């Protein structure tokens, strides 16, 4: 089966092509093409995953491009991480395809949406089976394209246009880091193949500085894709896309690609302490940074988006603390519960036609399926014991502690508290209390939307059990099998960590309940709207404004300066030369005054000058 893994990405590609060519004729029936094709991918992925449990990794490649004597290859590889990712991606993609059939119903560009989804899924699946850095990079960019297209799906909205543009450019900044890192690695190791890079790193042929440099450059790529600080600003804006897209791309799969990349390149990172520390620090900082913003946002999707950024920071923290398994584990659980949350949020939006949580409230009764599923997701992400998020978060905290980063550990803990708080704030505001907006036409979503949520809900609960302190660390052991450098399958940590995690998450929930559920505490007790802290958080620490004032302004400034040069200097020189020639012509023309005696005089003067020169130089110009 594994030798046919290359088919997995091809199915969605076929869907993309079919829908692009025949979308107009298929109309909404196009959804079936997409669903069927992703189902095929899912089935293949599951088969590959199960085969990989028992068989060794499989890699196959062929020559793609020859540069002199070096031949660059393309191909595919199935190892533990790839197989797992294949499964996650194709599963979430399949579910989102299904879900979208209901959600996008009635949209005029329905087939286009499915086509884009197909393209994205193709790219994402291609990314995870790439056997080398170059191919990874190529698909890396393609997923960016898919994301860009889907964010800008409502192209006629100015916000969507701006968001799409921003997403593309911000991630591209990161991509350039990856690009440079990749090329530097190539010249140091002579290959783009992961295996060869790692063996070269291991062999010690590369200086420590170069390892750190390349690792950090590659990490910059991950920062861009995974919305880590300081390149995080595009991700919340990306919520302008249709909600299923947010679930698929900006929660479960693409944004996790950064984590996946660091995980894939882990042996390189592991070789440099500095690089690891950088990853961990950025991750932890992002986790708390984004979480704090999430506390005050009022757009349901934006809260989720900041939560995503924060959770991705968690994963980075895990990887940076050498918690390979923890990172990947959280990636998986997060994919499920965050996709669930988004789909549920989409269902809510579908029902009430607004994204502002201030206008919601009291939906628990009206959305019989959505509300409980949303609660499951909220519990999972908050790290309430026995749900998936609890286990994976615990792993991360252990990794951070064991990795010797007490400060980062504390940060992570605070972030966990905040997460629980803002998620339940969201939950309470949306589903409990009085209806604050017009809810006349609210109705539960159709089955095609609730069923995928159901599947994810189940997974959000159970997926944590593949790697627990109690029932064995199956996932971890499998992931690191055959490669000790990735660390242990499960980290033994002090039990108080688990207790602490539970306590902070419950505390967060309790506080949220006090404020938004029971309303016994004023919403403004710490910092109300209009207060400095609130304003800063609400405006996301003014990072966007800061960029606008610095990077964008500088770029524009340089542009206008160069235009000045272009017009006045380059153009001026040209005008000067032309003017000089013209002036010469005018002078010559003026000399032609019609007086024949002048003409002869000129000739005579010419002769005289030549003669004088001849006389002075003793005869010859030498």
């Amino acid at each position, binding site marked *: 089966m594994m030798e046919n893994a290359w088919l997995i990405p091809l199915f969605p590609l076929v869907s993309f092509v079919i829908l692009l060519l025949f979308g107009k004729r298929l109309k909404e029936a196009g959804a079936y093409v997409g669903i069927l094709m992703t189902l095929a991918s899912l089935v293949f992925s599951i088969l590959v995953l199960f085969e990989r449990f028992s068989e060794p990794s499989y890699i196959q490649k062929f*020559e*793609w*491009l*020859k*540069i*002199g*004597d*070096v031949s660059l290859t393309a191909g595919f590889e199935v190892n533990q991480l790839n197989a797992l990712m294949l499964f996650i991606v194709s599963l979430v993609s399949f579910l989102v395809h299904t879900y979208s059939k209901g959600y996008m119903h009635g949209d005029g560009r329905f087939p286009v949406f499915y086509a884009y989804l197909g393209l994205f899924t193709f790219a994402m699946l291609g990314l995870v089976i790439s056997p080398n850095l*170059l191919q990874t*990079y*190529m*698909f*890396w*960019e*393609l997923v960016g*394209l898919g994301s860009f297209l889907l964010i*800008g799906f409502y*192209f*006629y*909205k*100015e916000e*969507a*246009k701006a968001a*799409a*543009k921003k997403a*593309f*450019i911000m991630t*591209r*900044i990161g*991509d*350039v880091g990856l*690009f*440079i890192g990749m*090329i*530097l690695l*190539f*010249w140091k190791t002579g290959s783009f193949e992961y295996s060869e890079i790692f063996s070269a790193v291991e062999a010690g042929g590369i200086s420590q500085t170069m390892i750190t440099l390349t690792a950090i450059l590659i990490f910059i790529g991950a920062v861009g894709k995974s919305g880590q600080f300081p390149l995080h600003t595009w991700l919340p804006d990306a919520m302008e896309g249709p909600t299923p897209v947010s679930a698929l791309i900006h929660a479960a799969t693409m944004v996790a690609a950064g984590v996946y990349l660091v995980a894939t390149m882990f042996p390189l990172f592991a070789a440099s302490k500095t690089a690891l520390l950088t990853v961990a620090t950025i991750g932890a900082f992002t986790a708390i940074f984004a979480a704090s913003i999430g506390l005050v946002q009022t757009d349901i999707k934006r809260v989720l988006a900041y939560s995503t950024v924060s959770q991705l920071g968690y994963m980075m923290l895990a990887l940076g603390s050498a918690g390979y398994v923890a990172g990947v584990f959280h990636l998986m659980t997060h994919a499920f519960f965050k996709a669930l949350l988004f789909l549920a949020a989409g269902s809510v939006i579908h029902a009430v036609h607004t994204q502002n949580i201030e206008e919601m409230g009291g939906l628990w009764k009206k959305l019989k399926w959505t509300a409980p599923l949303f609660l499951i997701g909220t519990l999972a992400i908050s790290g309430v014991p026995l749900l998936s998020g609890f286990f994976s978060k615990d792993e991360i905290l252990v990794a951070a502690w064991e990795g010797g980063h007490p400060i980062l550990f504390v940060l992570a803990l605070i972030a966990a508290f905040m997460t629980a708080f803002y998620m339940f704030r969201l939950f309470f505001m949306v589903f409990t209390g009085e209806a604050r907006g017009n809810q006349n036409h609210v109705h539960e979503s159709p089955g095609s939307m609730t069923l995928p949520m159901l599947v994810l809900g189940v997974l959000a609960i159970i997926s944590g059990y593949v790697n627990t302190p109690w029932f064995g660390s199956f996932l971890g052991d499998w992931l690191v099998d055959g490669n000790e450098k990735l660390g242990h399958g499960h980290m033994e940590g002090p039990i108080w960590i688990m207790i602490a995690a539970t306590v902070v998450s419950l505390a967060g929930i309790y506080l949220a309940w006090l404020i938004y559920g029971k309303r016994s505490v004023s919403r403004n007790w710490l910092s109300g709207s209009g207060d400095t802290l609130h304003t800063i958080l609400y405006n996301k620490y003014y990072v966007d404004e800061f960029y606008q004032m610095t990077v964008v302004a500088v*770029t*524009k400034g*340089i*542009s*206008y300066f*160069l*235009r000045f040069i*272009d017009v006045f*200097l*380059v*153009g001026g*020189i*040209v005008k000067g030369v032309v003017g000089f020639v013209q002036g010469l012509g005018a002078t010559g023309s003026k000399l032609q005054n019609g007086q024949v005696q002048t003409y002869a005089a000129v000739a005579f003067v010419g002769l005289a000058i030549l003669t004088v020169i001849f006389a002075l130089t003793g005869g010859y110009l030498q």
Partner: protein
Amino acid sequence: MNLGWALTLLVLFPLLGIVVLAFMPKTAEKSIKLVGFLATLPSLLLALAAYLHFKWGKDLADFAVTHDWIQFRGMNADEPYFSVNFELGLSGFQLILVVLTAVVATLAAIASKYVKKEWKGYYMLFLLLETGMLGVFTAENLILFFLFFEITLIPTFFLIGKWGYFEKEKAAYSFLIYNGLGSAVLLIVIMILFAKTGTTNIEILKSIMADPSAPLSGDLKLGLFIALLIAFGVKLPIFPLHSWMLKVHVQAPPAVVMIHSGILLKIGAYGLIRFGLGIFPEQFEKLATLLAILGVINLLYGAFLAFIQTDFKMVLAYSSISHMGIVLIGLAAMNEAGVQGAIFQVISHGLISALLFFLVGVLYERTDTSLIENLGGLAKGMPIAAGFLLAAAMASLGLPGMSGFVSEFMAFLGLFNELPWVAAVGTLGIILTAAYLLRAVLGMTFGQAHREFAGIMDLRGVEFIPVVVLTFLIVLIGVYPSVLSAPLQATLETIMLGLGG
């Protein structure tokens, strides 16, 4: 097997079209356009046949053709005559350029359907231009190269000056004078080489130059190379010799810009590679750092300026400058990756800019504007055109899976090995490219519609041919770059041999 006749025919076939057109009544618009289009086909078919010939493992040397042409009297009384032969030939590099030329020319002939007046003159000049371009890429000696090079100048002047937009005459003059200066410098180089060595055959010159006992001093060679750099720098164009091409891009009719941006600019790159790298490898090496810096300047300068343009054509014009910077970057690397990247960029940009300008033509035809703000929200009215526009922009900004990426990647790959810091600065261009292209393209296609697009047709009929063919080729090269790299192997090996390693 000697196929020299085929190559000669390939180059001269468009002239046959001119003859046919000469006998047609000048009011027969439809049939003139048809004949103009058909006349480009034989060359295209022959070019494709030549590619297949190579694909099937046969020798490209089969296409070489040599005839006696001009015998000059020797410079000194006792010297024999100097011969300039009519020599055409194909190497892998030339082959792909010929194919590119034939393809773009045929597509531009289709795009010429928007020409509103004096079709007869237009197509005659157009076909003359095609012969010139095909000749440039197949000429095996410098004089013949120069002949064809200048032949491209005159029809282009008229095509711009007569069928262009508002400031067409100014643009035509700008084109003529800059390129005239460029070719003048080139002529000096050619004639000095000719006078010193008695030959203009490129291959022979290469071997003469490689010979240390050649009758040229190092300083002279360096001077000649710098002159060559200026000559082709005008064409490419290299900052600060670029201002003419902005005017041309904006003022010329779209079909001509397709040719101009797609092929004529590439003559500069071709010349730098074939003559600069080929004949003056040592001098090239000496100036490699300078070239790399120039390349980065081009790349960033074009990108920054493209960022603030209001006219989409200007964006594309500066983008061409920027992209030609990548050619320089690749060449300056002077290793396999870099040079191959540069050549890829030549082809890739040829296809992409042809596509973009065709779309510009389509838009202009329907909306009478190419100002970004006037076109906002175009995707609503013309979704297919907008889609292709976006695809072309993506190709241009180097999205993997399309040709732009492969070339950009290889060029940078090459330079990072030689001058990592310069290359690192250059990568800034990758970001800027994305920024200005998205700004422009999204500004045109996305967002609120600023105008009624009712009654405006989307792409239709034959308009699909150029768009689809070009997109296909762009994707083909992006996905399967071996279609280009295979014919290039031999060329690259020769160049690397010349560089001594």
